[in-house]
């Protein structure tokens, strides 16, 4: 038996559909910025700060999870229905999904993923060089062919991790292990 429509007009239905499909907004945390901050703090080791950071991260993770679970009731009704139609159109003009791996925001938040991307790389490299000096730049990977590696990820990732300060390197290893697990 079909569900009663409660005499909703098309605009209301459209709004209702849109709200149902909305997911919570992605936590505004940048993985690189977070790790950079941790790396910097590690220069002045402070157990209290470390514990505070751990507690804050735990709270944040719990908060994020809660937000995820409570997504359908998120207060997103302040926008007028005619404005909502613009977003509907924006969704429609977006091209279809490509067959590329997508890293969920939560996975990025906890560092599971990801090979560096060119976009992040310049910003990441620049900030690292400004903080730690040019020694964090990747060195050419030894190859028998005599030419630089054509595997950019390897060229950027592996030597950079070796050159990084210990705390950063440790985080890098954790990420690598997380990636493999």
């Amino acid at each position, binding site marked *: 038996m079909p569900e009663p429509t409660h005499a909703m007009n098309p605009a209301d239905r459209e709004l209702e559909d849109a709200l149902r499909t*909305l*997911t919570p*907004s*992605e936590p*505004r945390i*940048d993985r690189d*910025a977070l790790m950079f901050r941790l790396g910097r703090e*590690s*220069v002045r*080791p*402070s*157990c209290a700060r*470390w*514990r505070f950071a751990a507690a804050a991260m735990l709270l944040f993770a719990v908060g994020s999870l809660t937000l995820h679970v409570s997504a359908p009731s998120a207060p*997103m009704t*302040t*926008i007028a229905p005619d*404005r*909502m139609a*613009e*977003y509907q159109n*924006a*969704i429609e*003009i977006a*091209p279809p*999904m490509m067959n*590329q791996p*997508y*890293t969920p*925001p939560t996975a*990025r938040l906890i560092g599971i993923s*990801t*090979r560096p*991307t*060119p*976009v*992040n790389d*310049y*910003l990441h490299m*620049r*900030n690292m*060089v*400004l*903080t730690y*000096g*040019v020694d964090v*730049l990747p*060195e*050419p990977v*030894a*190859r*028998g062919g*005599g*030419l*630089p590696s054509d595997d*950019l990820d390897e060229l950027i990732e592996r030597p950079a991790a070796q050159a990084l*300060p*210990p*705390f950063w390197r*440790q985080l890098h290893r954790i990420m690598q292990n997380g990636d493999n697990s």
Partner: protein
Amino acid sequence: MNVRSSFFTALFVSALMLSAPMILCAQVALQTPDAPDEDQPQRVVLTVYPAAPSKPALRYALLHEVIDQKPGNAALAYERAVSQLNGEQYVKDTDALFRQWSEIPLADLPLEEMKQALGRYSNVMEQLEFASLYESCDWQTTIREHGFHTLLLHLSPMRQAARLLSAQIRYDIAVGDFDQAIRHLRIGFTLAKQVSQGQTLIEGLVGISISALMLERVRELIQQPSAPNLYWPITDLGQPFLDPRQSVSWERWWLYATLPKLKDARKGKYSVELCRELMVQLPSIEGGWSNIDQREPSLTLQTTGVAVALYPQAKQYLLAHGRTAEQVEAMPVAEALLTTLLEGYETQRDDLFKWYSLPYWQAADGMRRIDDQLKQSDEMAMDTFLARFLLPSLQAARSSYVSLEQQIALARCVEMIRQYAAENDGRLPASLADVRDAAVPIDSATGQPIAYRVENDRAIIEAPAPKYRPKSKGFVYEVRAAKRD
């Protein structure tokens, strides 16, 4: 199990759980490298011998003379030269040896082993010199086309080349061949200058690093008993030696190079379609193109969610920045959001960059103020969001150039001391102003003459860290004047 033992077990487990982060913290502390003391400037102790300025004054110039240069682009020739340095053996063995030799005192260098190792790369050295003689250097990076995707693959090989040069210069100095040392220094300083002429901040910083390496070699050279006085050649490097403006010119425009369609929005050419498309694309800057499929439906929905949440903030911003309520209401939501993001970004960006061209002592407060404002701003504030994420620490960048200038100024001061000693029976000058026919270098961190005093038969030359930087970024040179045998 009784209550008491349960209590202690629980206590033990709690303590264990609590101690885990502490153990990790302690481990981190133990693994932290021997960083320089943040509270102390870098102390450099030098023993120098009297030496009058050379005649002609620029006989030992540290950059190529225009008469020796040739037209053309050096980048290709550099690439050709360093392509021979990437073999397995070189990277694993020779380059590692050169690093090792850079830390051994000159007197302890294994000269025969060095001679053989360097001899194997004499053709590379020739090609490096050949490249350095070209008048211009265009690395032809693809910033305009690729924005943040631009690859800077030439930098690491150039740093390898610098290490090779550094090892060669140390060898030259150790065997007393100062003409060769200066010839190779000339290649090194030219390489540093040409690398720094790239279009990115990272290239500028690598140029500084190579320059600093060459200045270390200069410090070693001028401590040799019969080394020529290099006051005028060092002065002739230029003030500043490296142009700090060039390497940040693109830092203002990365966003628009990465998302070229933003250029239309920036010119006020808004269309609803453009705004919608860019609002979908902008979050991808945060996540990276290859990690996040910007066309994946959930991302689009997330963007929509973010837009819904931020629209009231955008309206507030626009109303506070000159738009009437009617104009704001008439504006499509995507345009309102995009306008707020871009206007806010450009305002913050230019408020920071406008200080950069000034001397550091005039710019430091202004740059610091903007840095602080950005740090203290709400992470979800639209007008500062892009600036927080994309803008570099200009103060750190600018102070790196200042630090290089300070090192050049200090080397000039040492040569003034050698000149005075040569003309005054080995004595130290009471003041650098006492040295005739020379100008006291200016400390680029303060705009004042470099601080100098004599203590216990030693000259103390000081260049404190630039304002707002750790004290360890400053220098104290302690110079003793010895007499030749």
